[in-house]
C-alpha cells in the first residue's frame, strides 16, 4: 500500500470532500488500490474530515470492502436461492477441501448475481461460469494461471 494517493483526488473533488461521499470514495479507493489499507483509510478520513472510527465503522459494515490485499484470482460461489436449490452447497463443500489459497485463488461467496438461469454458478475473476458441476469447476480453476 502506497503512502500517498493522488489518484483518489478526482473522486474526492467530485464529492466536494463531503461526508456523504464516503462510500463512493471507499468504492473508488478499493478499485484503485485493491483494498482499503490503513494508510488509505486515514487519508480518506482526513480528506473528508471524518473521525477514524466513523470511516472504519462504515467500511466494515459492507461486505465488499476488504482490508487485506486480494490474491491473484477470486472465485465467488453464488449462494443465492436459485443456486442453493441447484446445488451451490455441494460446490462449496468440494472447494473447501482444495488448497486454493496456495494456488493464488481466494474463495468467497455472493448472494445472487441476478443471472439465476445459470444456477449453480460461480464468478471467477469477474466472469460468470454457468451451470457448474464440481468436476467442471475444479478443472476450470486448475486452468487458471497460478
Amino acid at each position, binding site marked *: 500500500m502506497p503512502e500517498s494517493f493522488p489518484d483518489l483526488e478526482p473522486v474526492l473533488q467530485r464529492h466536494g470532500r463531503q*461526508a456523504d461521499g464516503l462510500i463512493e470514495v471507499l468504492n473508488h479507493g478499493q478499485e484503485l488500490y485493491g483494498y482499503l489499507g490503513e494508510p488509505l483509510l486515514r487519508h480518506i478520513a482526513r480528506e473528508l474530515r471524518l473521525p477514524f472510527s466513523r470511516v472504519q465503522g462504515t467500511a466494515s459494515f459492507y461486505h*465488499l470492502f476488504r482490508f487485506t490485499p486480494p490474491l491473484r484470482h477470486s472465485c465467488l460461489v453464488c*449462494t443465492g*436461492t436459485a443456486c442453493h436449490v*441447484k446445488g451451490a452447497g455441494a460446490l462449496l463443500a468440494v472447494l473447501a477441501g482444495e488448497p486454493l489459497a496456495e494456488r493464488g485463488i481466494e474463495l468467497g461467496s455472493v448472494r445472487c*448475481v441476478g443471472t*439465476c438461469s445459470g444456477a449453480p454458478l460461480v464468478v471467477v475473476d469477474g466472469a460468470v461460469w454457468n451451470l457448474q458441476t464440481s468436476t467442471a469447476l475444479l478443472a476450470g480453476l486448475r486452468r487458471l494461471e497460478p
Partner: protein
Amino acid sequence: MSLCLRVCTAASCRSRGGEDLRQALAAVAGSSTVVKGVGCLGPCSEGPLLELETASGVGHPERQLFGNLPASDPAALAALARSLRACAENPKAPAPWQPPAGQALDLNHPFFRLQRRLVLKHCGRIDPESITEALAAGIYQQLQRVLEANDPAAVIELVRRSGLRGRGGAGYPTGLKWATVAKMPGHEKVVVCNADEGDPGAFMDRTVLEGDPHTLLEGMAIAAHAVGASRGFIYVRAEYPLAIARLRQAIHQAEQQGWLGTAIAGSRFNFEIALRVGAGAYVCGEETALIQSIEGKRGMPRPRPPYPAEQGVFGLPTLINNVETFANVPALLRLGVEAYGGGTKVFSLTGDVLRTGVIEVPMGTNLRTIVETMGGGAPQGRTIKAVQTGGPSGGCVPAQQLDTPVTYESLQALGTIMGSGGMVVMDDTTNMVDIARFFMAFSREESCGKCVPCRAGTVQLDNLLCRILERRANPADLEQLESLCVMVMDTSLCGLGQSAPKPVLSTLRHFRGDYLAMLSPEATP
C-alpha cells in the same frame, strides 16, 4: 429483404456469450441489415438468444426467436453469420430462416403469449445504450406531456386512481406516497430509486436497468415533477456492474439531450440524478437504511415515523420507490387508467422449472399458469413441491395451492408475500427445513446488528434449525423455534428482522411433516 438482428447482451445471455455473438454478427450488418445488442428477451435459460425480424416490404414484419446459439466456437459463429448474410441477400429467402446450430423458439408458446409487457415494453426491442432509439420508441414523451400540462396534482391523482402499488415488496399505494411527499412543506425534496434488488433469486430490476434505463429515468423525472423534487438518487447494488454502466451512460445521455438537468424540455423544471453504488449489504434495501447509505454511513435502519416522506435523505422530504414502480409510470400515463387496468407484475422465474427467465404478466395471473404453463413445470420425472415468493421476507406456496392468483392479498393469505418478484420453484427432492434454514442463515448474515431480537435472535433461530437438520432436536426445540420466531417478528426494529422468521413459519405451516420427520424425541441439546 431487410433484417433486424437483436442479440441479447444483458447479464444472463452475456454470461453465455451473448456479447461474442453480437460481435460475430456485427459482420453481417449492411445497408439493409441492422445488428444490435438489446436487453433481456425473456427465456434466459435458453441463452444466448437472438431475435430476427424480417420485413419483406409487405405486411407485418415477421419475428423469430432463436436460443442456445453458438457463442464461443469461432467456426460455428462464422457459419451462423454466413447463413444470416445469405438470408439477408436473398430477396425471397425461404422463410422461416433456420440457424445452422441452436434452435428456434416458438413465439406462440404461452411463455410469450400470456405476457403483457408494459414495464418491459421496450426491453429487448431497443438498444439500451442509445438514447436515439429510446426517443424513437417514444420514451420521454410522457415526461414532455407532463411538463407541458404542468399539473402535478393531476398526475398524482392519476397514479392514485390507477391503484398502482409499490413493487419493491411492501405494496404501499404509490399515489398516496406521492401525495404525502407533495404535501410536505419546503422547496427542496428528493426522489430516490431503490435499485438495491437484494432478494436472492430476483432480477426483475436488473432487467429494467440493463434493458431500458431511459424508461426508469423518465418515470423518476415524472415523479419528481409531481412531488416537487429537484434532486434524485438511484441506489444500485454493486453486484450489477452492467446495470451500473448502462445507468451511468443513460444519465449522461439524458443530460446531454436536455431530459435531465436544468430547464428540462424547455420548461422550468430542473431535475438531476446522481448514482450511488452500494457495497454489499442487503439491509440497505430497507428505506431508512438506504437513506443512511446514500448519506455515506453504515446502513442501519431507524424507527419510523418519521417516514422518509417527512424526513429522508439529508433530512429532506423524500420519495422512495422501487425501479419497477417508477418504470410503470410512463406506461400508465400513456395508456390512461382504464386501459392500464390492473397493471402487471414482472417476475423472475428460477429454480426447478424447465424454462427460467423474466416474464411480465397481468396482475392476478395464476401461479400455476406462470410456473407450469409458462415455465413448463418441474424437470422430467419430478413434480413441483412449492414455489417460493418474496425472498427472505416471504414464504412458500405449496403445490396444492398453485391455483392462487398472484395478488398482494391472496399471497398474504397464504402466509407469504408478493415481494419484489423473485419466484423460485422447488421440486419434490427439496427439504423444506433446509430452505427455511437457508433463508435464516441469510437473514443472520445480513442483520445490521442494531436491535437485539434480530441480531441475536436470528443466530439462535439459525442454530435451532441446524440442530433440526442434523437430527439433534426434540419436540421441545420445535416449540422454542416457533415461539422465538414470533418474538423476533413482533419486536425487531425494521422489516428485515420483522420478516426474517416468515420463511420458517410458512414452511412450518405448509410442510410441518418435513420438520417432524427430522426430530428425534430423545435428543437432548
